């Protein structure tokens, strides 16, 4: 073989480098967004980069397209070259050990590192945030400490959202924790107080915020359910605008969440008392229900894409008031009315649409609001020993309740409603008994007869409520 | 001459084995050697002949497969002997990140010398090897010759009784070579024993009292330099320039009787000739010790020696028809 001298060899290498650069340039050349003209520079049109750049644009995969870029995360990944997967696995094992050994500070730090290594895996964000908000928080004994970890979990989700602008799941999970962990856990009374009125961390008081503005962006007195509703609405917006995929649940159910959160907000008035121990039921709660009914009906009117067994696609909606409307849809897609009904029924079962519809319509009425209020206040009076006043108020409330059940007979089998009515009856009967009046005489006879076989359950519930 | 043996080897052999213990190379075969106090002994041989192996066996860097070596009365593997020897390695294997002052200080410490003594010795040796000006420079910046010189200085740091020099003049310019040779002779004058390996035959010829020539791990030649190089049975005549007639006349005269000789001497061959002859001869008669003429007074190699003479005489000026 012919021996090449040094210069020739170098030229061959140079040639090789150039040849190899061509595909790299074609594939990897970065593009540039267009630049507007300023006083000192001329406008520059956008430049098309290589194939990879085009694909990155097509699928929105650029780091900055996905969300805010965290410099430390980028550095870490750069330093690790291709080993981030391995590093994440090792860190996850470590995190698990820290959690088992209750080394919370180290757990949190490891969590942060894992997130930094995998900033675009939304499952990682969710898993880690959930772990802190649910698993770690319950390990701590003091409610203040638990709240601290719930907030940590929420904040991780929020950060995940900032870095992954186009993932509806993360918005939804953020809202879900704000709604359910703060609003429905064992500690909901305290958590809601911390969220809305006063964070246990004194530093927020110093800032004159009172609450943690990072998770309650609207500040003091803003309800966690409304905050959650905003997050659900955001997730809906992202789902519509940027990324039509969410990995959580059936799309129709997913869409119901903003309205459901509004319902939760309205509902919480009924089970919560204000600082002075008074019921929060009143005009404000009725308005909340009013908004909830608007939201729910609006949700019911969103078209749902379905496929009939003919193979044809069509649109149905949850809010259907009459058989004529079914017929109309059936005619439109040339299918049996029965088929349409069947499909809609399935969606109704999925979302429990008819029940909530009845509920919101019932609750937004002033009569209903007053019924709740009078029953509640009657029971409070009973607790104070003012029996006669209590009986009068209870009777008034029960009458209104009766009207409500007459108008919305579906509610006669709904648990919460039944419980409220039955407990009211029981209290009323006790009062009458105490006052030496026949206990059998009371309104809501129909409800009583329907459910008196389950009396022990309601008696227990009554005792619980009366002891509070 | 003091005939006390400073180095003594008895059937010293070395076989290199590979990782699995299989025999690879027989580097040295039954070497018997004695170096006496106060002499300069040269170890010669072509590459791979076993002289470096011998040196390393003597220093205890290698362990003999068979036989034994004693230096200054103790086994070669004994560390105690190092107290009294100095070693100049082939390529001056020194620490290149030290400067010459630090180098000497370091090796001085290894001899457990106190600070004051180290300082004095270093000073003296730097002067001796003429590196006083370069004392603060790291060895990595040194030329080959300077490296040899600092190498020699470290070998002498402990004022040793026995000095082992591996290629002492390689890389030195003629002036440096001269200095080195003077130094070696000077060492002998101080009563030290010197063992040197070298390829530069003229140097060996100049300074060595005795030489040994090794080839393929075997000792081929051993003896005093002047005796090895002496040709018996030959007379050398040197005159001033003579006319042809005068030469004829002298021839005639010589044929008749002895008169008007300017010089009568035994002509010597050069060590180079001897070396080449030995090596060539060894190729012809492998496994046999080459007996040079000087040692063959009662041997049968007289013929062979005779054959050598014309070669030697042919080079002399006085050779004539």
């Amino acid at each position, binding site marked *: 073989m012919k021996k090449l001298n040094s210069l020739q060899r170098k030229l061959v290498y140079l040639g090789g480098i150039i040849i190899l650069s061509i595909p790299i340039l074609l594939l990897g050349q970065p593009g540039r967004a267009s630049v507007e003209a300023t006083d000192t520079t001329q406008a520059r049109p956008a430049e098309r980069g290589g194939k990879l750049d085009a694909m990155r644009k097509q699928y929105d995969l650029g780091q900055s397209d996905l969300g805010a870029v965290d*410099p*430390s995360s980028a*550095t*870490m990944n750069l330093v690790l070259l291709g080993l981030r997967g391995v590093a994440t696995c090792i860190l996850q094992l470590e995190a698990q050990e820290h959690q*088992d*050994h*209750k*080394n*919370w*500070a*180290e757990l*949190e*730090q490891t969590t*942060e*590192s894992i997130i*930094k290594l995998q900033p675009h895996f939304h499952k990682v964000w969710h898993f880690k945030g959930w772990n802190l908000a649910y698993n770690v928080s319950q*390990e*701590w*004994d*003091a*409610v203040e*400490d638990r709240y*601290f970890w719930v907030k940590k979990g929420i904040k991780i989700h929020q950060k995940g959202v900032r870095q992954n602008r186009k993932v509806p799941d993360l918005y939804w999970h953020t809202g879900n924790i704000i709604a359910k962990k703060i609003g429905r856990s*064992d*500690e909901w009374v*305290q958590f809601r107080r911390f969220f809305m009125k006063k964070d246990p961390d004194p*530093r927020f008081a110093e800032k004159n915020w009172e609450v943690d503005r990072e998770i309650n962006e609207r500040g003091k007195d803003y309800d966690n359910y409304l905050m959650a509703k905003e997050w659900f609405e955001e997730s809906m917006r992202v789902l519509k605008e940027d990324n039509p995929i969410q990995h959580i649940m059936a799309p129709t159910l997913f869409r119901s969440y903003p309205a459901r959160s509004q319902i939760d907000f309205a509902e919480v008035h009924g089970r919560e008392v204000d600082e002075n121990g008074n019921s929060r039921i009143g005009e404000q709660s009725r308005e909340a229900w009013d908004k909830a009914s608007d939201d729910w009906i609006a949700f019911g009117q969103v078209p749902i894409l379905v496929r009939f067994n003919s193979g044809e696609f069509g649109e149905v909606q949850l809010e259907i008031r009459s058989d004529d409307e079914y017929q109309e849809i059936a005619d439109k897609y040339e299918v049996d009315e029965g088929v349409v009904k069947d499909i809609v029924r399935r969606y109704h079962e999925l979302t429990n649409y008819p029940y909530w519809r009845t509920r919101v319509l019932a609750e937004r009425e002033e009569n209903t609001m007053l019924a709740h209020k009078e029953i509640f206040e009657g029971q409070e009076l009973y607790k104070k020993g003012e029996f006669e006043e209590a009986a009068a108020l209870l009777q008034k409330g029960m009458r209104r309740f009766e009207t409500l059940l007459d108008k919305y007979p579906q509610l006669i089998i709904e648990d919460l409603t039944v419980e409220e009515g039955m407990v009211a009856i029981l209290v009323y009967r006790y009062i009458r008994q105490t006052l030496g009046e026949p206990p059998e005489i009371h309104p809501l006879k129909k409800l009583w007869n329907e459910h008196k076989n389950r009396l022990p359950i309601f008696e227990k519930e009554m005792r619980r409520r009366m002891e509070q | 001459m003091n005939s006390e043996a400073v180095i003594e080897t008895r059937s010293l052999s070395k076989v*290199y084995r590979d990782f699995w213990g299989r025999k690879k190379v027989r580097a040295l075969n039954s070497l018997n050697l004695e170096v006496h106090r106060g002499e300069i002994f040269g170890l010669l041989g072509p590459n791979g002949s076993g002289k470096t192996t011998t040196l*390393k066996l003597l*220093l*205890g*860097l*290698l*362990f003999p497969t068979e036989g034994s070596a004693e230096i200054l009365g103790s086994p070669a593997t*004994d*560390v*105690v002997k*190092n*107290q009294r*020897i100095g*070693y100049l*390695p082939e*390529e001056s*294997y*020194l*620490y290149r*990140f*030290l400067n010459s002052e*630090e180098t000497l200080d*370091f*090796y001085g*410490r*290894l*001899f*457990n010398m106190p600070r004051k003594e180290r300082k004095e010795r270093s000073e003296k040796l730097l002067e001796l090897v003429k590196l006083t000006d370069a004392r603060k420079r790291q060895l990595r910046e040194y030329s080959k010759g300077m490296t040899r010189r600092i190498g020699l200085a*470290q070998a002498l740091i*402990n004022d040793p009784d026995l000095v082992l020099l591996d290629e002492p003049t390689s890389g030195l310019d003629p002036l440096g070579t001269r200095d080195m040779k003077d130094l070696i002779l000077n060492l002998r004058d101080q009563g030290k024993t010197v063992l040197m390996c070298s390829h530069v035959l003229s140097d060996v010829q100049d300074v060595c009292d005795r030489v040994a020539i090794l080839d393929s791990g075997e000792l081929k030649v051993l003896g005093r330099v002047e005796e090895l190089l002496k040709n018996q049975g030959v007379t050398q005549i040197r005159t001033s320039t003579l006319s042809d007639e005068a030469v004829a006349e002298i021839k005639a005269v010589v044929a008749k009787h002895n008169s008007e000789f300017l010089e009568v001497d035994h002509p010597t061959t050069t060590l180079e000739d001897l070396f080449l002859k030995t090596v060539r001869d060894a190729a012809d008669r492998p496994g046999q010790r080459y007996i040079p003429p000087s040692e063959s007074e009662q041997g049968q190699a007289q013929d062979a020696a005779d054959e050598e003479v014309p070669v030697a005489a042919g080079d002399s000026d006085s050779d004539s028809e």
Partner: protein
Amino acid sequence: MTFNPIPFDVLAGLVNWAKVVGCVFAAVFVIAFLLQIASRGAQGPAFFFRQLVASVMDWLTMSPRRIWALTLLTFREASRRKVFTIGVIFIVLIMFAGWFLGDSTERPEMQVKRYVSFMLTTIGWLILPVVVILSCWGIPEDIKARSLHTVVTKPVKRNEVVLGRIFGFNLIGTVALLTMGVAGYAWMMRSLNEETRGSLTARVPVYGEISWLNKQGNEALQGDNVGDIWTFRSYIAGNTKARAIWDFTGIDEDSFRKNPQTGEPELHLESTFNVFRSFKGDLERGILARYTFVNDSRGLRVSVDPFEVQEFRAGANVMTIPRKITYGPDRSLSADILDDLADDGNLRIEVECLTTSQYLGAAQSDLFIRLPEQSFASSFGKAIFGIWMMMTTAIVLSVCLSCVVKGPVAMLAAGCIIVIGKSFWGFLAKVASGDVEGGGVIEGIIRIHRHITPNVEFQEDSRRQLVESIDKVPQLYVQVSRYLIPDLSQFNMTEYVANGFDIPFSAGLLPALATMLGFCIPWIFLGYLALKFRELESK
């Protein structure tokens, strides 16, 4: 806290060490002896014993000056090869560390925990690779460049070469470590704010021995298990006769601290109990616990006021008890803790949980008497000393390995041993004892292949016996080789410092010191033997 303050039993450790080291050296000598007989025949034994005597002489005639010369040489070599650029990496790391260490809205004690553990972990992991690489290449490079030839032809003994190298690398490591320690400390002080810095303390705890009573009031080995994965703590049920009892010894005047206002001596009792709620209970109130001082010989039982346990709140669960306790109805009775309640310096404290159906979790380290605090700097310094000991162990290991094999091989071997010793020693111990879920190698393979979970037992038959007996072989191997690998987690004292504790001598520093010496001494000797009986001109 995950540490158990068990004082190190020096004698038992020493006996154990002597056994293992004795076995190793006996094996080495027997093999060497047999080899000599095989190669030298009848002269073998004589040669062997001559060498043995020579080896002993080498150690008896070591010269500090020669060792120091080699130490200095090693140090110079490394520093001229610019190893101290490691400092630059460290500075860059801590410059950006703030990015990774999260926000300052954190609770102070958690922030401190993060910073301290980050700092100590970083220093530990940064120094190890550097010294391992350096020490693995030192001697092999020296042999390869033949500069060692020049050295060993001087009256230098091989043990001096080994020791000189070890000390040299150690000196480098020490300089680097000290610099990093000081810089790290300064950086922490600078980046933590005023309030948080207050959490940098070094509590000095006096630990006791723990024992248990069960619900019926009988002695028990431990408390209840509430289903926690981590079995470090066990639990006592509330409002029962269950107790966790601590016996403190050596209580004297010095165990008390002077009240800053009144000057009265008082006992500071700190706890780090966990709680477990079997039902929600009153969320706004913590679980109640109570201390009772017990002196059985005098029949005295003195309870102090109950307190709410503040779980995971470092430093919040401190109870100050005056030396003269008043108790009983209307506090009419009084007792002196030292004179009345302690029995010859032995103080017994019973802990009970007062909240019905809730549980209090405790481990030995969860109750302690607090002496006056040490400075944080001193405990940080001790943790750095722990890292120093780990570094020394790594250096000795690497240098000695490099006496036997070439640089890259030594590096791999040292790396493996260090990674195992640092991260997987516990796992190794588990494998050795056979406690690993899912059985041995073969059993594991079968389980994976057949999708059998570890909690399903294999059928009892001959095949199972076969599998188990094959699995015994690697297990046995691990059992033996485990003793040759140091448990480097002994040197990790981060947990003490990060949790604001002083590092105790007998439970923290002493075992680390013992581990270091226990491994280093035989290693050095083995390294020396390897270098002595090895031809430097290896071809």
